[in-house]
Structures are given as structure tokens and as C-alpha cells.
């Protein structure tokens, strides 16, 4: 190397200053942003000013202080103790729980029904495939609200409790809703339930351990005895150890209505049927697309290697199909949750319905709507965070 290095070879790229000229791209970008953000801020400021003025004129106090006041609003069904003497805060909590009650049950049932319909659409039996296709097409082409009103009308036109439809002993369907027998819930049942939950978690670790041992000596180990033990026998054992309480509370007609058992109100029932059948139509298409996304060659290659069909399904097809299915499935779960807000149209008291009544009673329109939006944003964000985590976990396998 020569000791005289041309200084031009050592040059670092020049630091470009922003020229205050319209010809400079970065200058232009900054001006644009200031302009647009300025417009937005001005509009918001204008709206806020108007709102403040209007609130003053109407003598409406802002703030969430009203939440502590007595609600005085009757709620027909609630998962927790509630009387109209409770505060608005409790009433709104009841509303949130009612929303969750329909959303959680709805998501589970819609996934089951949707998966069945999606698989049915791929059935080799022409009749099954055709019926599933017609179901999907019809259910997706009608407004959900119309379907909800339809179901609610049907449920309301059912006979009264005295002439209730009684398909199976202990089950009554009338215009008062669906009555089901229910056990007299005691500590032992709660304990058994927690053991079941713990069993689910334990099973997850057992599965990993069994897989590890199989990798060590090659011998596959059956999972089902563990599942049976942890999810079946253990909860039963705990329940039995705590005295095995078992009193079934059968619904029975007393006078003009039923007593005993557990009741599903016509409002809840209609909302649940509507949401489940509607969302299942969309889930079915997602499941179908997911299965079709795994090419026939994958089956053939796996079978040619000597894998049995259930193994092919577990090791090859499902992992690939799930990756296609899960992202759109997440948005369907979110849609179902948001759609449960249509409850207000048929009188099921979810968060929207209760917040709406609250804002009518108190005049706290801004706070009421902020509560509704806050609740849904929280639910939406939680579901998408969970699903993104799960998605990342199974997508890791790709690349």
C-alpha cells in the first residue's frame, strides 16, 4: 500500500441539511405533515370548544362522578348480585359480564358449528356439501339484525309456560325462554372445576414430557390415559372426596311460570342463536379455505412415507391449515364480540344497552359512549394480542 492515500477515497457520505425549499423532498414532507396535523388538531379543537360550550349551556357536568350514584335501573339477568339500588358502576359491570357471557359462549359454539359446516362443504356426499353451501350463502346474505329479530319473534311466538314444548324430560321451551335442569352448585363442584382447569394446564406439560421421552427411546406413548386421568378421574375424585353432592334442580311448572333449573331468557337465546349461526357461516368458509390450502401432494408424500391418516392429519395437514385459518378466524371472533352489541335491539341487557339507558337517564352522553368504546376496544385489543401471540407461536415454524 502506498502511504499517500487519496483523501477522496476516505470520504464519508455528506450529511445533507434540509434546504428550506419546495424542491427538497424532506422539507416538503415536513410541511405536509404540519399542514395535515394542523388541520386535524384545528377540527378537534373546534369540536371540543363547541362541546364545552354546549355542555355549559345545557348545564351538564362532565366527569365520571355519576358512576357512584344509585342506578335505579332494573336488569333482568345478571351473573352477579344486583339490585336497582346498586350504583351505575355495578350496573355497567353487569352489562360487561353479560356481553362477555354471550361473546364467550358464542365464540365457542360458532367455532364448533362453523368447523362442522366447513368440513361438510368438502364432503364427498353431494347432499351434505350442497346443504352446507346453501346454508353459508343464505346466512351470509341476510343482515344479522334481521336474523336476530326473526329469531326473537319466533321465540316470542312460542306457547306460554303451561303449553311449553318439552322435547326431553326436564327441558322446557316456551315464550319465557329455555329451561334446563341444573345441579345444585356447591363447593365441591367449584373445586372439581378448578381441578379440571389445572388438569388442562398439566396435560400441556405431560404432552411435552411424553414427546421428550419418545424422542429419547423412539417408543410413542399414548396420551389418552393421561387425558382421561387428569380431565376425567381427578375432578371426579375431588368431587367425591368432598362428599359427592348431587342434587339436580329440575325445572317445574308452578302457577304461571317455571321454578328451579337454569333459565336462558328468550333475549339471550335469540342473540346466541343469531350470533352463532351467522358467524358460523363465515367461519365455515375460513375452515374450508384452510383445508383446501394444504395441497393433495402433502397427503400423498406423507402416506408414501408410511404415516397413517391420523398421523398425517396431526403432523402435516393441521399445522399447515391452522396457519391459514387463524388470522381470519381472529377477526371473526372480534366481529362476533362487536356484533353482540346488537343485543340492544332485542332487549338483552349487554353493555351497550345498559350504557345507553345510563346515558339517557343521566344525560352523560360523552361518558356513556366513551365507556362503550373503551370496553370494546379493551376486548378487541385483548383478543388480537392473544391471537397474535398464538399466531407468532405457530408461525415460527415457517421461516
Amino acid at each position, binding site marked *: 500500500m502506498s502511504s499517500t492515500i487519496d483523501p477522496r477515497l476516505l470520504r464519508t457520505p455528506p450529511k445533507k441539511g434540509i434546504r428550506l425549499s419546495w424542491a427538497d423532498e424532506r422539507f416538503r414532507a415536513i410541511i405536509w405533515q404540519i399542514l395535515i*396535523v394542523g388541520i386535524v388538531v384545528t377540527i378537534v379543537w373546534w369540536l371540543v370548544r363547541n*362541546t364545552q360550550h354546549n355542555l355549559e349551556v345545557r348545564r351538564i357536568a362532565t366527569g365520571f362522578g355519576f358512576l357512584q350514584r344509585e342506578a335505579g335501573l332494573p336488569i333482568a339477568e345478571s351473573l352477579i348480585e344486583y339490585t336497582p339500588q346498586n350504583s351505575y358502576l355495578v350496573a355497567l359491570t353487569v352489562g360487561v359480564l353479560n356481553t362477555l357471557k354471550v361473546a364467550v359462549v358464542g365464540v365457542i359454539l360458532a367455532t364448533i358449528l362453523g368447523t362442522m359446516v366447513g368440513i361438510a362443504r368438502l364432503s364427498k356426499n353431494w347432499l351434505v356439501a350442497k346443504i352446507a353451501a346453501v346454508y353459508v350463502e343464505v346466512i351470509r346474505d341476510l343482515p344479522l339484525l334481521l336474523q336476530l*329479530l326473526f329469531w326473537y319473534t319466533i321465540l316470542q311466538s312460542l306457547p306460554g309456560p303451561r303449553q311449553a314444548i318439552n322435547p326431553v324430560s326436564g327441558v322446557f321451551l316456551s315464550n319465557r325462554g329455555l329451561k334446563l335442569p341444573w345441579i345444585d352448585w356447591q363447593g365441591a363442584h367449584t373445586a372439581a372445576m378448578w381441578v379440571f382447569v389445572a388438569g388442562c394446564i398439566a396435560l400441556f406439560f405431560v404432552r411435552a414430557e411424553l414427546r421428550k421421552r419418545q424422542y429419547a427411546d423412539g417408543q410413542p406413548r399414548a396420551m389418552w390415559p393421561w387425558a382421561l386421568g387428569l380431565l376425567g378421574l381427578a375432578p371426579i375424585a375431588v368431587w367425591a372426596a368432598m362428599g359427592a353432592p348431587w342434587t339436580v334442580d329440575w325445572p317445574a311448572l308452578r302457577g304461571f311460570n317455571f321454578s328451579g333449573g337454569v333459565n336462558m331468557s328468550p333475549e339471550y337465546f335469540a342473540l346466541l342463536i343469531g350470533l352463532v349461526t351467522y358467524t358460523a357461516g363465515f367461519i365455515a368458509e375460513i375452515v374450508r379455505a384452510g383445508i383446501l390450502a394444504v395441497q393433495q401432494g402433502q397427503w400423498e408424500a406423507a402416506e408414501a412415507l408410511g404415516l397413517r391418516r391420523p398421523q398425517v392429519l396431526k403432523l402435516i395437514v393441521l399445522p399447515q391449515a391452522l396457519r391459514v385459518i387463524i388470522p381470519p378466524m381472529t377477526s371473526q371472533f372480534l366481529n362476533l364480540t362487536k356484533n353482540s352489541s346488537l343485543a340492544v*335491539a332485542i332487549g338483552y341487557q349487554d353493555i351497550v344497552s345498559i350504557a345507553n339507558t345510563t346515558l339517557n337517564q343521566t344525560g352523560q352522553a360523552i361518558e356513556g359512549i366513551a365507556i362503550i368504546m373503551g370496553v370494546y*376496544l379493551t376486548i378487541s385489543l385483548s383478543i388480537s394480542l392473544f391471537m397474535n401471540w398464538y399466531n407468532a407461536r405457530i408461525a415460527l415454524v415457517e421461516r
Partner: protein
Amino acid sequence: MSDITLGTAAVPLTTPSRTPPVLVAGPVAWMRTNLFSGWFSTAVTLALGYLIITRAISFIDWAFLSAVWSVPGGNQTQVCRDMKGIGACWAVITEKHRFILFGTYPFDEHWRPALACLLFVGLYVVSAMRRFWRKELALIWIGMLTAIGILMWGGILGLSFVPQERWGGLPITLILSTFGLAFAFPLSILVALGRRSKMPAIKMLCVLYVELIRGVPLISLLFMASVMFPLFLPEGMNIDKLLRAQVAIILFAGAYLAEVVRAGLQALPKGQYEAADAMGLTYWQKTSFIVLPQALKTVIPPLVNTFIGFFKDTSLVLIIGIFDLLTAGKTAIVEPAWQGFGVEVYVFVGVIYFLFCYAMSKYSQGLEAELNNRRR
């Protein structure tokens, strides 16, 4: 290499073709493979077949054979009540169909909303045709929507003035969804472009808008439109309820459409952007001549599907008391004489919604197949 085809059809085969040992062609074979291909399949077919036939018979009986098509005096519904559960009471449709379709619009002027609906359908048909996918389409839209406005409001050309409060039924549904699309679509393009912009402030604004709107139910936006908008505006300035709901629907649809448009922008190969840059086009030239025409074409099927979605969702205005098709149907059975005939009315309204949505969904499926074929 595997595509070598040998022209040996003329050479006689050493082993002549035989028919397969089992019947494999014709309707019997079709049924054997598609309906009765095993004991389980056979059982399912028979059970479903039985169910369908019995259901179909009782439905036909309810809907046609035992149905009541009209009642004396127009509201003597005893005939219907006697047949409750046995036959449908289509008399409610016979009596109320004008109300369900056009709401409280002056009865003698019903031809005007009817014509408006036809114009809407015409507008959809024209927009669906590929040969009209040109800049002129925007002019057609403006022209048609103006004509519809004149028809509905009147006040000129010898048409009597009908205030907006008296509009109702199907025109409202079509107005909400069509104007919704007309305004939400340009909005969504701007937002989608903004979300892909390199300018952080603009990108953040767009992300915030899209995610906030998509995180909450449409109902909460409609509530906001009905109870909060009046608070936002300066004193004395009043916007009517329909317009407020329309704004909510536009904001709602804009966020969802923006995501669809963004998918189209993302799918566009990078080379297209680079080529446009190399030609020295400015951002707006590049966007409107190169990027958008291609990106939008690929996302037309999902755009149509999103449109179907919010066509159905306009029915939610029922909850804030706007008189659309579904609200009109629900109101028609409030009158004591007609109470209890909800099923018939909802079936009627459902058929109307279904016709619109089914046509659009078939169209989008056909378009998608066509686009896929061309890409292959």
C-alpha cells in the same frame, strides 16, 4: 417433458378398451359415488333426504297451500289468527308492502322512490360492467345521485316537495349504503395511502383512525352520531339525523375499505413503484396513473364483499330510529291488527336483502374466478 403426446390414436391397441367392472358412468354411478358411497354416507343421505322432503312439504304447505293472501276490509285479521302456525299470513304483505318499501312517503308519489330504487339498481349494474370502468364512471355516479336527490326531494320540475323526515323504507337503505360507498371509497384510498406513507405523523393519524374504528361496534358510532354530534356542533347549527347516521356509516366503511385497499397496494410488485420513480413521475402522478389503477383492480372482489357487509350493516340504523327497510318492516307490525305476523314481514324483508346481497356476492365470486384465471 411430460407433455409429449403421441399421435398414435390410429394405431390399434393390443389390449382393447373394456368397460370397468362396476358401473362408473351415468346417473346411477353418479349417485353411487356422490350419495351412497358407503353405509355411513348412505345413512346420512337417507336421513337428510327424509328431513328435507318433510321440511319442504310443511314449508310449502305453510307458505303457499294454507297461506292467507288477503283479508276482508284490509285489517280484519281474524282469518289470519285462525290460521296461525298452519298457514302464512301474506295478507300483511299485501296490505303493508307499500309502507315497508317506501315508509311514510306520500302515497300518491310512491312512483318517485320506486324510480329512485330502479336508478340505484341501474347504477350498480353499470358500475359492475367492465366496459364502464373508466373515469367517466364518476360522472355517471354524480349524475345518477343528483337525479335521485331531485326525485326524492322534489320541489322543482313540477315535483312536489317531500321533506326528508317522510322518506323511508328501501330508498333509505339504498341511500345509506350507496352514498356511504361514494364517500367512503375516496376516503379509504387516502387513508390507505396515508398508512403506507413515509411521513410518520400522517401514518400515525391513519393507523389511529383505522384501528379505533375497527375496534368498536358500528352501533357505538351510530349512538355517537345520534347523541354526541349535536354536542359537537356550534349552537343553532343542526344536521338532520339521517345525515348524521350517514356520516357515521361513511367513517365506519372508510376504515374497513382502507384495509382492503391497503392489501391491494401491498400486493403490487415493487418493480412497478421503481419503474414509476425511474420515469420521474411525482408522487401524485405515480399514484394515480400507475399504482391505484392496478391495486384497485386486484381488490375489486374483496371490495364488493366489504360493500355487501356494510349494505347489510345499514340495517343497524334501526336502533337509532331511522326509517330504513328493516325499521319499516318492524313498524308495519306495530299496529294492533297486525301484531304477531313478524315472521312473514321478516321473510319478505329478508328476500329483498337477499336478492341484493346474493347478486353482489355471485358477481364478486365470478370476478374473482376471472381475475385468478387471467393471472394464471
